[in-house]
C-alpha cells in the first residue's frame, strides 16, 4: 500500500523572490522608452517609392541570475571566477556548471581571481559599434586571468596601440567605484608594472601608419 501523502496548500511561489534594495539609474541623457512609434517618412519625387521611419526603443532587464556574483564583483572591484570542485577547471568568463562532460554539469563554486592576466591575442580597432566610435583606436585583447582555462576580451590601455605584444603581462584596473555599473566596461587591462615595450619594428610601423588617420577621424566626430 502506498504511504499517505499530505497535499499541502498551493504555494504562492516556487522560490522566494529576491528583495532588491540597491537600485541605480545611469541612463544617458536623452534616452527614452518611447516604445514603437512611426516618426516620419519620405516619398520619391515621382511618388512611387516610400520609406517610413519607425522608432523602436525598449528597456530590457538582463536577469543575471546565477551569474550575478560576477557582475556584483565588478562593482566591488573584484574579478570573480568559478571553479569545478570535481575537475578543478576554473573560468573567467564564468560557467555555473562544468564544461567537462565527465563532470556531468557539476555545479561550480565561486572563487576570487587575481587581478593579473596575460595577453593571449590582440587587435587594434580603428572602427567599432556606434557606442564606441569616439574611443578609437582601441586595443582589444583576449587575455587569460589568473589560472582561468579561457580568455576574456577587454580593452588594453596605457600604451601605444603598436606596442601591444602576444604574451605580455597585464594588470586589471577598475574604474573609480562611483563610475562602475556592474558591466565588463568597469575594468580594463594595463601593462603589468615594470613592463617595457620592445623597440619599433616593421609591424609596429605598419600599425602606426594604419592608426594615425583614425586619430584624425575621431577628432571630426561630434
Amino acid at each position, binding site marked *: 500500500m502506498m504511504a499517505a501523502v499530505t497535499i499541502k496548500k498551493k504555494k504562492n511561489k516556487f522560490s522566494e523572490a529576491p528583495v532588491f534594495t540597491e537600485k541605480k539609474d545611469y541612463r544617458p541623457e536623452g534616452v527614452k522608452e518611447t516604445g514603437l512609434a512611426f516618426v516620419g517618412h519620405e516619398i520619391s519625387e515621382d511618388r512611387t*517609392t516610400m*520609406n517610413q521611419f*519607425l522608432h*523602436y526603443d525598449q528597456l530590457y532587464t*538582463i536577469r*543575471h541570475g546565477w*551569474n550575478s556574483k560576477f*557582475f556584483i564583483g565588478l562593482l566591488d572591484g573584484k574579478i570573480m571566477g568559478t571553479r569545478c570542485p570535481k575537475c578543478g*577547471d576554473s*573560468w573567467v*568568463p564564468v560557467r555555473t556548471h562544468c*564544461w*567537462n*562532460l*565527465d563532470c556531468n554539469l557539476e555545479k561550480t563554486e565561486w572563487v576570487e581571481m587575481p587581478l593579473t592576466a596575460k595577453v*593571449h*591575442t*590582440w*587587435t*587594434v*580597432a*580603428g*572602427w*567599432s*559599434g*556606434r*557606442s*564606441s*566610435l569616439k574611443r578609437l*583606436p*582601441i586595443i*582589444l*585583447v*583576449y587575455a*587569460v586571468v589568473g589560472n582561468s*582555462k*579561457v*580568455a*576574456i*576580451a*577587454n*580593452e588594453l590601455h596605457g600604451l601605444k596601440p603598436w606596442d601591444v605584444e*602576444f604574451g605580455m603581462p597585464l594588470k586589471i584596473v577598475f574604474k573609480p567605484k562611483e563610475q562602475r555599473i556592474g*558591466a*565588463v*566596461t568597469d575594468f580594463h587591462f594595463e601593462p603589468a608594472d615594470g613592463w617595457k615595450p620592445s623597440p619599433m619594428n616593421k609591424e609596429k610601423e*605598419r*600599425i602606426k601608419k*594604419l*592608426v594615425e*588617420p*583614425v586619430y584624425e577621424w575621431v577628432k571630426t566626430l561630434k
Partner: protein
Amino acid sequence: MSRKVCIIGGATTPFDYGPTGFESIEGGAAECVKETQQDVPEFSLRDLDLMIYSHFSVHFGHQLAPEWIIHDHLGLVGLPHYRVENGGNTGGSALYAAALAVMSGHHDVVGIVGWETMDTVSQSQGSEFIAMASDIRYELMVGGIYPIYYAAMANKWMKENKVSEEDVATIAAKNKNNAMDNPKAQWYRNDHKYITVDDVMNSRLISYPIKKYDRSLMSRGVAFLVVCSEKYAKKVNPNHYVTVDGMGLSSCTIRAGDRLNNPGWKERYGPGYPEMTEFAACRNSAEQAYKMAGIKDPVKDIDFGEIHDAFSTSEAQIYKALGLADQTNIAQFIRDERTSMHGDIPMNPGGGLLGYGHPVGATGLMSTIECYYQLVGMIPQKHLSRKTEVPNPECGIVNSHAGTGTSISNFILRRH
C-alpha cells in the same frame, strides 16, 4: 540507405544596400521564384510540400515572424512552413534542414527563401546589431563588432601560419574582382571597380590586420532555392540538377576565448586545438561532409567552392580548416593563386560575401545557388562573361559560417 537529395534551381535578387531598386522582401521572394521558373519551366509552386525560411535578425526587420508575410504572399497557405535561424550559418542550416526533410522521405520538394535587410539602420548600428550575436554580457561593450573578434583571431593565426597582410589582401581583391563579372553582386552594383592588393592595403583600418576592403558588405537581398528528391529532379529538370552528396554541420563556443582548453575539442582532436585561431567547426563539418561524399583528398576531389569569406582573413583560415593546406604550406597555397579563376581550385567565383554581399539569411543560399550554376553550366547566362566560369566542374563545396566560427556547415555538391 537514406534518399538522395537534389537541387534543381534557385535565384537571388540583386544584392544591394540603401534606397535603390528595392521591391520589398516578399516582392523579392516572388521575383526569385519567377526567375527559377524561367530556368526550370516544369517547376510549379504547387509541387512544394514544405517551405523553410532562412532569416537571421528580427532586429533588422522590425517584424517578428516575417516569414509569414512572404509565405502568404507566395500563395502558399496550407503548406507547412517554419524558419531556421543560426547566425551567419542560417542559410547553410536551412539547407541542412531541407536536405534532412528530403532524406527522411517525409518531404519531396522543399523550397527555401532566405533574406536580410541590413540597411534599415545605420552601418554602425547595424554592426552593433550583428554583435548582439556575441555574448552581450561579456563582449558587446568591449569589442562592439564582429570584425574586432575576427581580427584578434586572425592576427594570431596569420603569425602562426606565416600568412601576411598582403597574402589575405590577394583574397579580398580576387573576390571583389570576381564580383565585377556578376551583375547581381553588390560590389558590381555599388562600388563597381576592379581593385589591387595595394588598394586593399591602403584602405582604412577596421581592426588590425583587417581593413575596409578585407571585410564583407552589409547587404539587402533575397534568395530562393529548391531542394528535392531525385525522382522529382528527374521529372522537372533532368539535365540540370545537382546532388547533395555530402553535408556536415558542427558547432563551437560563442565566445572565441572559450576555445582554449575546451574539453569537447580536446576529446576530438587532442590538446592545443583549435586554440583561438582555427575554425574547428569548419574542420569538423567538412570531415562529416567528405566522409559522406567519399572525398579523400579535397584539393584533388573538389573542383571549386563558394565559401564564407566574411573577411579575407577568414577565407584563408577556411582553406586550412577544409584541409586544402596545412601550417607548412598555407602561405604558399595562397601565393600560388590556387584559388583564383586560373588556379586549380577556384574559390568564390561568384564574388563571395566580399563581392556578392552578405545579407545574412540569404548568404548561404547565394553560395549554394552560385555553386549550382557552375555545376550545371549556367554561368554564361548568369554572369557577364565566361571569365568566372569554372571549366567543366564535377564537384563543388559550399561553406556557411556563423558567429566567430560558432556554427559552420559544409556541403558537397556534384553534377548529376
